């Protein structure tokens, strides 16, 4: 599997480490009155989609960047690769 890194171009998946669902970036507010429930869901509940999935990959044997990779779980086709930093900044702007 080849991941087309936004800075470095196409790189072999063996250079990367997989973390999981990119929703991990969206950490619940610990001061919310439902914080305990929200953190339970955040920690333990994952969607298991057949099709498009946004996930976190770490370029450990490369430039040590975190990426958000949009991958089809049925075909392994990768349709989008973004720097997690850019995604996080965009998420903060929306809040």
């Amino acid at each position, binding site marked *: 599997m080849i991941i087309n890194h936004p800075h470095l171009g196409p*790189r072999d998946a063996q250079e990367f480490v997989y973390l999981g669902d990119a929703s991990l970036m969206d950490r619940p507010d610990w001061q919310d009155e439902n914080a305990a429930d929200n953190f339970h869901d955040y920690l333990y509940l994952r969607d298991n989609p057949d099709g498009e999935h946004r996930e976190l990959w770490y370029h450990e044997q490369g430039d040590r960047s975190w990426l958000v990779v949009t991958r089809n779980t049925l075909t392994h086709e990768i349709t989008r690769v973004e720097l997690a930093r850019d995604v996080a900044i965009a998420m903060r702007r929306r809040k």
Partner: protein
Amino acid sequence: MSEYTMTALPALGGYQASFDGVTLQEVTATAIVSIAIPLGGDDAMAKALQDAYGTAIPRAGHTSLANDGATRFLGMSSEQMFAVFDHAGAHALDVIAGNLKDAGYYTLQSDNWVALRISGPRSRDALERICPIDLNSAAFPQGKVARTTMEHLGVIIYPDDTDSFILLSGSSSAGSFLHALETSIHNIL
């Protein structure tokens, strides 16, 4: 008390070997200094690099060369680069810190790495079995650099001439890395 003088030895003892179409040699007396750019400090670093070395901050995956040709800066990520230059002795950090002042955070890396040059018309053939990077001169010309793995070992690779590549890998596993390279070379002979 006796006075002892310590002399650093190269990780592979100055290894050098020639094969049909491939030459492999350890590059000794190479200094490597990691330069981290402080958050928001890109402009200050760009100015310091320009003033001291007449060159620009390399983007990740690219290198830039000082205007005297003696120091090469490897863009390792968007906030880190390695300065690579010939230097015997243990004070390479002072050279970089003296030139770039407080524009970055510096770490002496020389002892952590072994440097090998693989060159010759068949060097790409030898590397393509263990290196996942596209080494075609159009895809990976001089001025580019990549950090990757070869035989599960972390390696930084960049071309330094036509049909010639510098390989940097961990000095603690230098013997294993050399074995992987020699095996790959023997496989194409």
